[in-house]
């Protein structure tokens, strides 16, 4: 049992709250039911703790109808982090073989192919183009989404950093960072990946490890060290790195307003809010047009913590709503700094809102030049 006095006190209070955060819960938005809500999750756990009722199969499902986005925490005066508690409970469900089948299949897939998409590991670095860069060496931990689903993010990241004077190395045998497994309670499987990655990362000589995926970032800077796996060089998210190098960045001409979507892992979970905005302002020459829900109050894209695997229709409904938020402020460009968010948001964007990851935005002009030259 995950029960400790602190957790028991927290779920007891949350379970009986008059729903002060429900209005921002993306799964409440998607289902319009009181079950997949922070107080619904807390009530399940509270009733189990006090011995009123065990968590049944539907209860397990409810605990996996959570994006672990922690948006509720922004609105919680007693500061109860239900996402964290849900994740702890998921660990327990995994240990007792109660996790949903689709999540078990996801774990098997990651174990077999080292990525959650079931793509061939041998093709992981297929996106990589031949290059001859010089300059200080950075180690780019690509992440599965950029490697398999959003290859232009990985390619633009390399091109951009080379353009501003760095050379990038990519691990020949990078595995999934483990984030999807940590978030769904599969810690032991996640740690196997972590140990493999850490061993390789520590062998390669570079100034820093650079990541474009906030899920990878959180895994490498929090999950790994919290579970005793040390990395011998600093980890930086691309937005932070570019913010520090902003004077070198090329300019982009935009034919409309640009807004920014805060990825949950980068924003609320890692407190990186300003760096991507600074970069956008620097390269575009104008500040981000903020969506009404931004920074600590940003809505999740719907893609996190296994939700899209288990409930794709509901996950996409959340992504589509986030696109609407961008439309409300008349944004032409919706920029994020997360391949996973970008993938979801782009899938739900209709004509009118162009969804880009940060390196893609910055390289737009350069690529246009390349196309122009080709023409």
């Amino acid at each position, binding site marked *: 049992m995950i029960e400790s006095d602190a957790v028991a006190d927290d779920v*007891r209070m949350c379970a009986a709250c008059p729903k002060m955060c429900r*209005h921002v819960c993306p799964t409440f938005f998607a289902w319009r039911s009181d*079950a997949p809500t922070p107080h619904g999750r807390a009530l399940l756990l509270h009733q189990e703790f006090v011995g009123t009722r065990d968590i049944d199969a539907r209860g397990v499902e409810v605990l996996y109808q959570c994006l672990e986005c922690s948006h509720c925490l922004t609105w919680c*005066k007693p500061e109860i982090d239900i996402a964290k508690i849900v994740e702890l409970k998921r660990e327990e469900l995994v240990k007792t073989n109660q996790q949903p089948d689709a999540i078990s299949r996801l774990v098997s897939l990651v174990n077999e192919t080292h990525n959650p998409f079931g793509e061939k590991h041998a093709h992981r670095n297929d996106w990589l183009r031949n290059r001859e860069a010089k300059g200080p060496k950075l180690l780019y931990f690509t992440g599965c989404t950029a490697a398999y689903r959003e290859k232009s993010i990985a390619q633009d990241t390399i091109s951009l950093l080379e353009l501003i004077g760095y050379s990038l190395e990519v691990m020949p045998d990078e595995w999934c960072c483990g984030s999807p497994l940590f978030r769904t309670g599969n810690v032991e499987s996640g740690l196997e990946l972590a140990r493999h990655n850490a061993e390789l990362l520590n062998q390669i000589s570079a100034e820093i490890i650079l990541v474009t995926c906030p899920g990878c970032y959180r895994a490498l800077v929090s999950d790994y060290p919290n579970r005793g796996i040390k990395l011998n060089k600093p980890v930086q998210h691309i937005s932070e790195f570019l913010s520090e190098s902003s004077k070198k960045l090329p300019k982009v001409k935009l034919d409309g307003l640009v807004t920014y979507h805060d990825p949950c892992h980068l924003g609320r979970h890692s407190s990186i809010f300003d760096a991507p905005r600074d970069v956008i302002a620097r390269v575009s020459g104008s500040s981000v047009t903020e969506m009404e829900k931004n920074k600590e109050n940003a809505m999740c894209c719907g893609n996190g913590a296994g939700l899209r695997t288990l409930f794709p229709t509901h996950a996409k409904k959340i992504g589509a709503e986030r696109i609407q938020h961008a439309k409300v402020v008349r944004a032409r460009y919706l920029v994020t700094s997360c391949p996973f968010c970008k993938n979801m948001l782009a899938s739900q964007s209709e004509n009118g809102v162009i969804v880009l990851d940060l390196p893609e935005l910055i390289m737009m002009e350069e690529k246009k030049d390349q196309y122009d030259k080709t023409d």
Partner: protein
Amino acid sequence: MLDEKAKKKALERISKIVGPEYITLNETDRILNAHDAWPLSEAKIRAGEILPLADLVVFPGSVGEISKILVVANDMKLPVTPVGGGAGTCGGTLPIFGGIQLDLKRLNRILEIDHASMLVRVEAGVVGIDLEEEVNRYGYTTGHTPTSLRASNIGGFIATRSGGSMSSLYGKIEDLTLGLQFVLPDGSIIESKAVPRHSVGPDLRQLIIGSEGTLGVITEATLRLFPIPEERRFRSVSFPDIHSGLEAIRKIFRAGILPSVVRLYDPEDAALSFSMHFDFEEGHCMLLLAFDGALEKVKIDEEKSVQICLDEGGCDQGVGPSKRWWEHRYDMYYPTRLTTSGYSIGDTIDIVATYDKLENVYYAMKEAMEAEDAVVMSHFSHMYPNGGSIYMIFFTSQPDAETAWATYKRIWDAGIASCLREGGTMSHQHGVGLSRSTYTENELGSAFDVLKKIKRVLDPNGIMNPGKLGLGVRE
């Protein structure tokens, strides 16, 4: 509760109407969706109790579906408990006789803003804050801002005859609701046209507003809108006693001024709410005022009001306490470790009375409730030219659940008895629900018989929210 055969039959018939994904018999779903915001429900949840459950929870997606569901329920004589946000504080949405929990959260569309008439047409399941934010985008406010705004739905506002914290200026929900769509227990869909007023017989809207789901299901409303005020100013004044504070309020209204916020905190509530942040004389009350409107008008209203307060013995406390309350107005709604520890339970008895009776009601209720082991603190809010409401807030902590629930009931009984004895009315804005259902007859007197007759005509099978408002109590 329904037997298995009836449950199966109801499931089969209603599934055909809403689709199988929008109806559930699952116990976990029934438990998680039974959750309301009645402090007694919350205390029972903390104590590990399970709240009364429906046999089926149904999530209809349109008024047409609701109409068909009610036809089935009427035919099978199934209890139907409509639920909006589940944010009611009186147990009005607890399905105490089982049956169908009719959850309206999927009716969440904001249909139309009429800029010329300053009206918005909205479905019943829209959350209050979502509507307010949407109309804000067009430069309007609904003027209806209860503390539960983030959790309560439009249908719930209307069903409970609610009032927002700025009701002194903008009005209560019965003033704000111009048009209404509702479904009667026989499935007929009734439209009450949105007009500023009419003289075509009695106003049917007003029968449905406050009916708490006992006469039918509210599905859509047309609400008034106001331009977001050019200026909102806050001012605070302390008073040596309740009497002088109430006199100041009475005279402000008498001078023709309608502040948007008028809240007079008694010494206990003033000490708890403001003494840690502001320096004012111990034992004093605190009056919070806000003024909305055009800058020039607001300036004049504020100056005149402050002068009236000073003439009544008030001491100007500036912007601070009033603005702080505004900025933290939702905070008191959150649970705290103190108020939820052990078998603690707190609640608010919101009553209303005319000025000639307000003070007597206040002192009588406070004395009676304190005699039942309650810590009591109060504020007068939602004030009007002819009187206003008192928030009698109480708190008790007992060694076990049985004693706590019994003490809670005794405090309520004592408070309401003294309110009625002194000429007050037992609910200003929270409704009746379950917590006050046993007092309805005493409150309404001969009018209660009329209400019962109306109920019998509109709902002959007694299916609609039985047991609430003191109507349709079953064996």
